[in-house]
Structures are given as structure tokens and as C-alpha cells.
């Protein structure tokens, strides 16, 4: 997973931003976060929005090294805080008739 480190405050994002939400700086350096993430919180969602095909849907926030966090779908029936996960790329949902792809997480 690619990360983006703010050149001023050091906050690491898992997505490309123009401006750091933490400090307002506009310079970032790319950094490699590896493929190992830890689940820090999650929910099992039984009322899913239109456009989502899985129900129940497990959603969570994972943390890579350097504190880089990412929200996403967790492909497991037994989520647990602290479990190790790895990212995979694929279909997330449908919006206005079009498929949206992105990263989700599976047990490592």
C-alpha cells in the first residue's frame, strides 16, 4: 500500500491529498506502507445503503505502520479488534449504475 507523508507535520495518509488536514501544508512524500494492517475498530452493519450488495457488511478502520489509517470493507465473518489484515483491490459498490472499485481488506 502506498502512503503519503506530510512533509511538515509527518501525518501519513493512505490516499493522495492536496493539503494536509492536520497542518495545512501542501507538500507530501510517497512512502511504502507494506501490506500488513491491524483492525482498530469495526462494525457489522445490518442496514446497508442502496448500491451495496453484501449484507451484513463488515466495515472497519485499519492502521498500517506509521499510524496511516484507512476505512474499508472487511471480508470476514469474525472481525476482531487487533486482527491482521491485508488490502485487496476490487469492486466495492455500485453508484449511479456504475461499479466503484477500490481497496478492501481480507485476513492476512
Amino acid at each position, binding site marked *: 500500500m502506498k502512503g503519503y507523508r506530510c512533509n511538515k507535520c509527518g501525518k501519513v*495518509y*493512505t*490516499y493522495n491529498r492536496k493539503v494536509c*488536514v*492536520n497542518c495545512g501544508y501542501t507538500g507530501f512524500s510517497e512512502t511504502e506502507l507494506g501490506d500488513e494492517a491491524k483492525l*482498530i*475498530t*469495526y*462494525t*457489522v*452493519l*445490518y*442496514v*446497508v*445503503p*442502496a*448500491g*451495496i450488495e453484501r449484507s451484513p*457488511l463488515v*466495515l*472497519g*478502520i485499519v492502521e498500517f505502520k506509521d499510524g496511516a*489509517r*484507512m*476505512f*474499508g*470493507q472487511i471480508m470476514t465473518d469474525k472481525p476482531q*479488534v487487533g486482527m491482521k489484515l491485508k488490502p485487496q483491490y476490487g469492486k*466495492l*459498490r455500485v*453508484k449511479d449504475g456504475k461499479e*466503484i472499485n*477500490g481497496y*478492501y481488506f481480507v485476513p492476512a
Partner: protein
Amino acid sequence: MGRKVAIIGAKMTKFGNLIDKTLMDLLVEPSESLIEEFKVERSKITSVYVSNLLGEISSRQTAVATALADYIGLKNVAAERIENGPASGASALRYAFMEISSGNSDMVLVAGAEKMRTAPTDVVTDLVSMMSHPEVEYPSGATMPSLGAMFARLYMQKYDVKPEHLAMVAVKNHSNAMKNPFAQLKKEVTLEQLIGPGSESFNPYVAEPLRLYDMSPMTDGGAALLLADLDTALSYTKKPVILEGVGESTDALALQDRDDPTELKAVRLSAEKAYRMSGIKPEEINVAEVHDAFTVLEIAISEEVGFFKKGEGKLALQNGVTKIDGEKPINTSGGLKARGHPLGATGLAQATEITWQLQGVADQRQVKDASTGFTVNMGGFGSNAVSIVYRRY
């Protein structure tokens, strides 16, 4: 500082499943009722703000503020719709506050309404989730309950908050709503029903660890307030309610991007701004309405706005401090949880309850001798908040 701004009066429709009412009905009814009760000459109102989120989809309607001005015969006024997620209502009040305080208008009507019960649940759930981060939350299926649940898991773990504490919020707010003729959910519930053995069928999980009775319902409803500078207000009522302080703050849009996702920084900072402007401290507040879209939020917010120390909100709740007859009554109306949560109208319903409390007309819910009040209305999941401090004249 500009002129003192006061609420002349506040009205709301019954909240609930109002299939026979249109969005315009929900805006017109409380507005007209204010104009009639206070015998306001329509030409005195020079500006109208309408808070509403889903008009396009619920009612195939935009520019609803212009429509309201037309429907109620306000001629050649300024009319604008305000959209700030579920905090639209308090934001609309903030605009009215600035406009009157600055001397640009003497009398402003603020109305808010939402129709949430027309479209299917999964469609409304999707619409509401559009306020999440468009790149890092929405694509994966984030909904407000899912963000609330992820927050709840972290917050409950950090401060040792148990499911029974969340259930206590529901029990209290349902009980308050029984005393509120305008509330949506008129049903007492018990801890036993909510978390006792076999409670999963009565109170199923919606977004673990949150269950059905941890959620505010989908609501149709409308509310309106009439505001003016204090001198003008006094010519219409002996009981104006003064807006002493108004504060707003944002936080990072995505929950994942907040350094400590158990903090509600927008809530805390908006409250601090409002207290500072008002010169009133949190310990001096007599009655408050806070944004309990999820039960856990009532506890967390009660700490963020300075009523209780971090981690002690659950104790205050457990000890009855936040009941109507407690030292710090919270959500006497039933809150979003049981009064109902019609997005665009919610902030105005909160202000309505505080207005009635400070005017001494809250009937069975009346907090004895209440002279100061507070509301906080959250936009998004913690990404925006608007706080207001009120004082009886």
C-alpha cells in the same frame, strides 16, 4: 459585539410518519402559527432561512426558502436555503443571528423541515451517507450508523462504557418523549427489554455494537422560530429568549483522519466558542438539548461540551443527573432518539425545546426555574457542529 438577538417564539409540527403532509406543509404550518400567535405584520419580516437537506429527492423541490416566502405572503424578502448536513437547523439560526446582530434585518423567520419517510430505507440511508468523505468513506458503504458504531466501539473501550449505559440513554429519552406531545416515539422502554436476556428480537443489532434502540428514527417534521433584535422582540413578547452565544467548528471530514477518533473536537470547539461569546460557563447551564443521533453520542457530547469530565458522562447518566428533575437535564424533549430526527428540522426542534423551557411553557417537561440553555447540533459524523447558548430575558 452587535445587537442582542432574541427568539420571539418557536413552533413545531408533530414529528413522525406524516405521509399526508408535504415538505411545504411542514414549513408553512409552524411559520404561520408563529405569525398568527404573535400578530406579526408580514412586512416586518425581511429575511427567511430554510434548513433542509433532501428536498430534491424527497419532494422534487429546490429553492424551498423562496417557496416558503411565497406561500406565506412575505413579499420581496431575502430567502435562502441552508444546508449543513444534520446541523442545517442550527446553521440557519446562526445566519439569522448574524443578520440581526449586524443590523441588516430586524426580524427574521427561520424554518426547517424534512420528509424522510417517503423513499425506501436503503435509499434514504444512502442519501444521508452522502455527507461522509466522498473518496475514503462513501465508496466502501459508510453510513452514519456505521461511523457511529465504529466511534462507539472505540469510545466504549476507552472509557469503560457498557451497553447498559447506552440503553439508559434510550430509557430516559423515551420516557421524556412520553411527556412531549410533539414527539415521534411514544413508548416507554425498560433496560430489561433493551439489553436483558432474549432482547435481540426486540432490540436487534443495526450496526454492532449499536442496536435499534441506540438509533434515532427516520422522521418527517418541521419547526420554525421567529427572531428579532431584543428591542423589537420585546414589542411582541414579554418572554424573549436571548441567543447569548453561537459557535461553529469543523473537524476532519473522515473519522479515520482524526488523530483521536474518540474525540468530538468539532462539538467541543463549537461549544467553547459559544460559551466564550455568551460569558456563560457550562456549569451554569440549566437545560440542554444535545445531538443524540446515537445513544452513545449523548454521553460523549455531555463530556465534550464541559458538563462532565471525560469518562464521567456515564456516571451522571446512571445517577439520574441528566433526568428532567436532575441537576443537568439533557434532552428533555426526548432528544433525536425519541422526539425524532428530521435532519433539516432537528436543530430548530432543539432550539424550540430550549425556548419553551426558558419561557416556562414546557408543561410536564418543565425544568424548574430554568434560565439558561444550551444546544449542540452535529453535522456529518462529528465533522461539523453548531452550539448555541440561550438565556431567559
